[in-house]
């Protein structure tokens, strides 16, 4: 059984899934790629939108949603390893 992912790792996985789709992703793809329950994915997305890592786009024509990475989101991906090491070294993980 694989090790339980931490919050920072889950955020990384969500952002990375969006990046791998060219910076914009549909919720169904994200649900599949992030390997989370529907409820958990919505909670994380809400948080990531609040932190300005992700922007939600609503297309009224098709009544569909997409999610795009912001500059802050790309910065997080680039600095993820350093952030993780700092957080792990000083015990600053959010519970």
């Amino acid at each position, binding site marked *: 059984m694989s090790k339980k992912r931490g919050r920072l790792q889950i955020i990384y996985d969500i952002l990375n899934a969006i990046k791998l789709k060219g910076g914009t992703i549909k919720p169904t793809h994200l649900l599949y790629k992030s390997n989370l329950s529907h409820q958990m994915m919505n909670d994380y997305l809400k948080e990531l939108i609040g932190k300005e890592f992700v922007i939600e786009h609503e297309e009224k024509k098709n009544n569909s949603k997409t999610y795009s990475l912001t500059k802050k989101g790309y910065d997080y991906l680039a600095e993820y390893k350093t952030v993780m090491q*700092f957080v792990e070294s*000083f015990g600053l993980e959010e519970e």
Partner: protein
Amino acid sequence: MRVVTCQTPLWFGTSEIIIQLIFTLVTFLIAFYAYRVYAISRQRPSLLFSIGFLGLSIAYFMQLLLNYFILTGVRTSQLLPNVVAASSTTLQLSVIAVILHMFFKTTGLALLAYVTLKERNMKIFILLVAISFVGLVFSGFLSLSFFLITSIFLAFITLQYYRRHARKPTTNSLLVFLGFGLFLLGNIQLAFASSLSLLYISGHFIALLGYALLLMSLLRVVMR
């Protein structure tokens, strides 16, 4: 309220200022980097950790100013014995520097204890600070109380980092645990420095070693 002073050799005055300058810079560097991590990750513990270390940095800067006032005052009195070395302004500034040092160090360590204990309720932090300040203000021995209260915070922080290291041992977790452990040991020595001035000197050097380990841990993260 009594403030206990200790006699330290004049040669240590300059060394002490250098050591405090190092403390100021190391704590500021950790605060800066923790804030950078917060800016990227938006994680609340990193922000609180940054503010805690910034508090320590300001505390050491205040102590640095205080020792500068004292050292220049002592040297003036040696060169010009007829001149009153410590003018009333210098004395007032020294008292303000001592109070600010105690305020920022106590608050900074209370915040670090709050973060490392993984508390979420901010009222716990306010309670810790309130009890600490009441203990300091109404203590008959201000200096001793200050070092004992800050040592209690450091003991909790060190214990948390020990548990962390025991659970998941890495080089960095060991460096951070030993760093805070030495910081605690140095702080305890400073608490009893009024009875033996050697403890004042060794306390500073042990704390310096502790900060060197914390800096090493930070550099291992940054330089990778």
